[in-house]
């Protein structure tokens, strides 16, 4: 008879991913306090030292040094900052645009919906990585370019999922009832639709942190990310990739950091989705 409050089995809280994410966030927030050295100061004499626990490693540099004798630990810590900053900015801008477009398209419908959805289709067709490359050569490399590029990569998928969600919300009686009570369309979108898609939005955000971090790294690899010497994890891998044979730690450590981070946010995101919105089907 009718739908009934579903009794939900909550998945186990993913403590390990949460711990990893917390460590990285703390690293990013307190980088100047935590990092033993400046991330860009070079000591060419100390270049390519292996991590402290290996033969030849120095106690001064726990995770070793890179080709310029920069402390990898410090770069990793500051790199977390940049990577997270890119993620936060891109997700705020891209996710925000996607959220707004999704809500408007889904709620208003009709021609507005068609036009917006064609734009979304266009965004999916447009090779975003390529666009990022293009932007980086037209506007120069930098945080702004990177954020714009990644925003372009993100907004459409946000818009699509949110719109789907709004379409089903719009069928719910409380939306019709809000109209009956005299709420205007913007008011309904803000007070009735928005709070109800926030869960979905949060899940999308978590699951896309990984996408952003990978995109940043890939663009750095292709030479279109944040310019050196500012450390980002992607750039660190990119700089060290030629040395896997002799100085593996230069690329492997940031590689592991990215993998751990993305793995953690994804596991966390999955859990969040199961908790908040188990029916949310997403990429």
């Amino acid at each position: 008879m009718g739908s009934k409050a579903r009794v939900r089995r909550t998945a186990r809280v993913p403590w390990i991913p949460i711990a990893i994410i917390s460590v990285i966030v703390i690293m990013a927030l307190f980088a100047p306090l935590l990092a033993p050295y400046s991330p860009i100061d070079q000591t060419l004499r100390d270049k390519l030292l292996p991590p402290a626990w290996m033969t030849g490693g120095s106690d001064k540099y726990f995770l070793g040094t890179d080709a310029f004798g920069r402390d990898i630990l410090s770069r990793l810590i500051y790199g977390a900052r940049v990577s997270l900053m890119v993620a936060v900015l891109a997700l705020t801008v891209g996710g925000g645009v996607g959220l707004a477009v999704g809500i408007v398209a889904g709620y208003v419908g009709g021609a507005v919906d068609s036009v917006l959805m064609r734009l979304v289709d266009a965004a999916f067709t447009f090779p975003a990585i390529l666009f990022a490359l293009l932007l980086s050569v037209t506007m120069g490399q930098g945080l702004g370019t990177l954020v714009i590029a990644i925003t372009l990569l993100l907004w459409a998928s946000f818009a699509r999922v949110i719109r789907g969600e709004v379409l089903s919300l719009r069928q719910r009686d409380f939306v019709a009832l809000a109209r009956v009570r005299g709420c205007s369309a913007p008011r309904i979108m803000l007070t009735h639709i928005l709070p109800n898609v926030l869960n979905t939005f949060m899940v999308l955000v978590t699951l896309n942190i990984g996408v952003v971090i990978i995109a940043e790294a890939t663009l750095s690899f292709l030479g279109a990310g944040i310019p050196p010497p500012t450390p980002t994890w992607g750039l660190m891998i990119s700089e060290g990739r030629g040395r896997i044979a002799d100085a593996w730690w230069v690329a492997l450590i940031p590689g592991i950091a990215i993998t751990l981070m993305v793995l953690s946010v994804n596991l966390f995101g999955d859990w969040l989705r199961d908790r908040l919105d188990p029916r949310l089907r997403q990429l």
Partner: protein
Amino acid sequence: MSAPLQDQGPPLLRVEGVRKYFALTKGILFTRTLGHIKAVDDVSFDIRAGETLGLVGESGCGKTTTSRMILNLEEPTEGRILLEGEAIHGLQGDALRAYRTKVQAVFQDPWSSLNPRMKVGRTIAESLIVNAWGDRAAIDERVRELLVQVGLRPEQAQQYPHEFSGGQRQRVALAAALASRPRLIVLDEPVSALDVSIRAQMMNLLKDIQAKDDVAYLLVAHDLATVRHMADHTVVMYLGKIVERAPTAALFDDVRHPYTKALFSAVLEAWPGQAAEEIELKGEVPSPLDPPSGCRFHTRCPYVMPHCSQREPALREVSPDHFVACHLFE
């Protein structure tokens, strides 16, 4: 209880020859128009202040569509709807807002009628807030009053919908509908999602409120017994058309239209072995996309005559205030 319609002043709500056709665009792939669903096809009736009109019929016959048009959620394809003599479609700005305070609704599904992210107090207050009804304190006071009126405790205003049972939610929905002191409340199957024991509570509550506030109801239902208990007048619909309309008592005493008869006989009395004359209809309900010609019921009618498929019967008065659309009564 049921005075003849024409004896009283102008009706609160008048539905005049209303039609609603939905263009059917089919499939995810095929966004082409396959035809039109004639969800409501030439429906007229009145509702008087302070009384209840029951609207019954099988699933898909257009009951909800009719009520959504009355709520100004849907534009009629044809025809018009008047509230206190004024056409409601095309209203803008203040006039629309004024209209919104006069007509409210309670829907069937208690789980989807309340915004899960909004405290119920806020939901109840919403129409007061958007209409700038008063200051905060006044609104809070009114919310408390409404909660008590529907049998809840005032402090429950602070709770979220998931903390309520289905019956309580329907009460909250009713409180929200009552907030702006409407003249008409559209009740679209307000009790069919509720358990038997809760259903009776809700029906009693609705009756009590009507007695006190003098509000009119349009009660959409498919359960005849519910309509019998609630409505002053009853309209029976079949495939978008009205087939019979009469004061409830008169209708239940003397069913005329063959479809209404079948409907009545299909109702299973909660009393074993009572059904006297049982009319089992053959076949399926035809698609509103391609309704049968002539009388829409002729494909399933036990009394079908040759001309039933040719001509459409008009709604005619067969006894005082009792209207039937059937060739048998010509």
